[in-house]
């Protein structure tokens, strides 16, 4: 993961975060665990990448954050997708599928 080009990394990470949050709200650590889970452990997101990304997406208006009690009654900052975040997820998914298809074809050729 560390060897991947930064632009791809960023784009991928954003997409994964949005995807991870699609079913419902999660706190930062939860997002990280969910990504590990849904990618079958392929991606393990370090806090140094995760939190800047979360804040960037919040700043862009795709995520909303609020403080709530966690499952074992600790205060944690929970992130949810906003309307425009959900739209963004749709766009990025489509985009990613196009790229993935194009690259797969390129590699088959």
């Amino acid at each position, binding site marked *: 993961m560390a060897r991947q080009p930064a632009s791809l990394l960023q784009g991928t990470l954003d997409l994964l975060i949005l995807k991870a949050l699609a079913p419902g709200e999660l706190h930062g650590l939860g997002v990280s665990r969910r990504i590990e889970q849904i990618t079958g452990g392929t991606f393990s997101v370090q806090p140094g990448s995760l939190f*800047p990304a979360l*804040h960037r997406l919040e700043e862009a208006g795709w995520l909303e954050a609020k403080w709530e009690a966690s499952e074992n009654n*600790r*205060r944690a900052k929970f992130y949810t997708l906003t*309307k425009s*975040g959900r739209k963004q997820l749709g766009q990025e998914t489509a985009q990613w599928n196009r790229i993935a298809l194009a690259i797969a074809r390129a590699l088959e050729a």
Partner: protein
Amino acid sequence: MPLFSRLSSLLRNLTRRARVERDLDDEMRAVVELLVEEKIQAGLSPDRARRAALLELRAESVKTQVRDARAGAMLETLLQDVRYSARLLRRSPLFAATILASLTVGIGANTAVFSVVDAVLLREIQLPQSDELAVVWKGPVGGKPESGMAPATALELGERIPTAAAVVPFALTQFTWQDETDGDQVLAMRVGASFLATLHVRPRLGRDFTSADDAAGAQPVVILGNGLWKRRFGADPSIVGRTIDLNGQAHLVVGVMGDDFGFPEVFGAAVHPEIWTALRMPPQEANDRGARYVFAVLRRHSGTPWTVVQSELDALSRALERIQPRSYTGQRLQALPVYGQVVGNVRVVLLVLWAAVTGVLLAACANVGHMLMSRATDRWRELAIRTSLGATRRRLVQQLLVESCVLGCSGALLGFGLSVLTLQAWRATGVLELFPRAQEVVVNARVFAFACVAGLLTSALCGVVPALRLVSMRAQDALRRGPSSTRASHPVSALRAALVVCQIAAAMTLAIGAGLLVRSFAAVQRVDLGFNPQDLLTLDVSLPRLYTRQAANAFFDRLHDDLEALPQVSSAGAMSLLPLGRDRFTWTFLVRDQPLLSGRLPIADVRMATPGALETLGVALRSGRLFRATDRNDSQPVAIINESLARQVWPGVDPIGRELKLEGPVDVLPWMTVVGVVANVRFGSRERAAGPAIYRPYSQQWRTDMAVLLRAKGDPQSALVAARQVVRSIDPSVTSLRLHEFSYYLARSVAERRLYMTMLSLSAVITLALALVGVYGSLAYLVTFRTREIGVRVALGARRAQVMWTVIGPALRLTLLGVLIGLSGSIVTRRALREQLFSVAPSDPWTIVLVSLLVVLAAGLATVVPARRAAHVDPITALRAE
């Protein structure tokens, strides 16, 4: 949006940065706790779990990365907003152009006008503690001071006014400068040794005067003004210690003043001395009690009121009256505080001009505000859609702010360009030509900054607040019903109407002031000067000091003959001072066999004239004769008087053959027989009616400095050049100075008046133009806004005229209201300008009526286009558009 929530949103924004930081800290702490819990559940001991969690998170470095990410995201959205705004503005070019033009003109004109006002008129007194300084003058009790005092009086003033901290005499004088190629004249001040010390200033280079410099036989020393030092000596510091030639005498330069020093302009803008020299009064001068050319600078102790100083001067005046009743009956010495005098002279005009340029700026801001508000209402739908798509309120504010700033900044930039161009144009067309400091006028940074802040604030406030007001209503409602049925814009349109009224009122007030100044200017131009300035040329000559009476007479006799022999000259003569020149030479006089009426001697302008001078000037002879070559030093002493003196001294009697004499020793100033009466000539200014005047033949009362007068035939410039050649051919050591067509002095005599008039008229015209844009804009908006309603009316059978009237009627009402407010506002302007008016009453009905008509007519024109558009609304299109 209610006030409270608006305030709280403002506060939220201000405290946002701190909040984000705190939030970030909390989040990291929470994450650590969650991690610790995870690790404990995985079987680690609490201590090890905590250590591992801290190691894994490395919170500080994460926080730095988060901050960078946030800043990056903000910058990105900012750039996005700028691009978006530019695109939007390009899409509505008329809107963008109107706002930009208003801002440009408002900021540009304000900056240009005020830069000039600040540099030319608003002369700050840069002396330390200048509120403690006064100049001592002499003048009638209860009247304005008119002159200085006698040297002897001025020299002993210090001892007689014990409450003053310092009293130093000074006098104005001219220095003629002669070098190989050319000559020049510089205004100088002869000052007591402690003059600069009393003003609390020191020379920048060299030394101050000492009491040794002031002794009668000491070497003449001078201190140079900074401007002169730069101009003539290229700012060469080695000038200190060298001698320069002034009035044919070597003067040692002992110092140079700093560039911030200038003597306060208590004598008016034109009196701007550039050399200071020690008084060095010879005993004969120091004992003189009759002359009136010495003034004194007085510094009071801080805390001593001016009334105390003045009461001492009054006591002294009464003591002088007992010794010199002829000089001091009804007269007194007066201490005029420097501050009040310098600033007081122009303060009112300054205030008016300041108000005028501020009016321009406000009118521009009103237009900007007004356009932006209309637009905010139009953008309602766009903003509502974006809100429902999830755009946060902060995001919208940022977007609107960026848009306003893009407009504001472009306007400021264009305004700066405009002000630079305007200043250049003024310099090129000579509006500023006659003001000594005008060449240095640059765009005034403070004024520009002020105008920009005003423009930006207006665009920010008017661009954001109304838009938000609309958005804060429920977005759903907005989309369903649209703005035309919500009446949401009504408060805004009331504000818009108020803006239009204010603009019209401001334009009206300024235009009336400008109208009065224009009429005064025209009246001043029409004044009968008492001589004929057409084709009149002048140059000043200054004879070297060694000239004797005989040599001087021979010089002017020959000059007269040689000049009249020139083909370009039809007549020539010389007179001691020019009419409309700034210098006066007045003297008290006595009349044979007439007791003093007021107990005090009358005063007259005294002029020395050669034969041919009055003829060349074109002064009409009323009775008797003019001077002839036969009036010699050894013939009967004669004088010519003007009508004013004849009327005052010999009312109803023929003055020819009567006798009068100037006050002074009879061997120098003998009794003179009146041989002629001539028309009154305005010597001092165009505005002031001529007082008594006495002309003396040059052969009987001579002096070294004379103004040569020529009546030209053909090209005036070649006549002047030829005249200078003639002067040089008679005696190369004689300096000719200031070769001018008389039109130069005519222009100079109205220069200040012209400047006020130009600046105020310009402000008035621009304000009116902006007001018309305002009227037009608000009506055009109204018509768009009510297209549907108009369509319904037309469909129901309203006639075109009726439809047009629904647009013109309200506009006319607003205009009339503005005109009425402007009329009452102009009472203040008119009162403030009273001193500047000439032969026009402040309540001149012509000006008021004409200006009102003009404003109403112009506003009417501005309504025509929108009204026509309303009249041509097609009901079908209008109704379908919804």
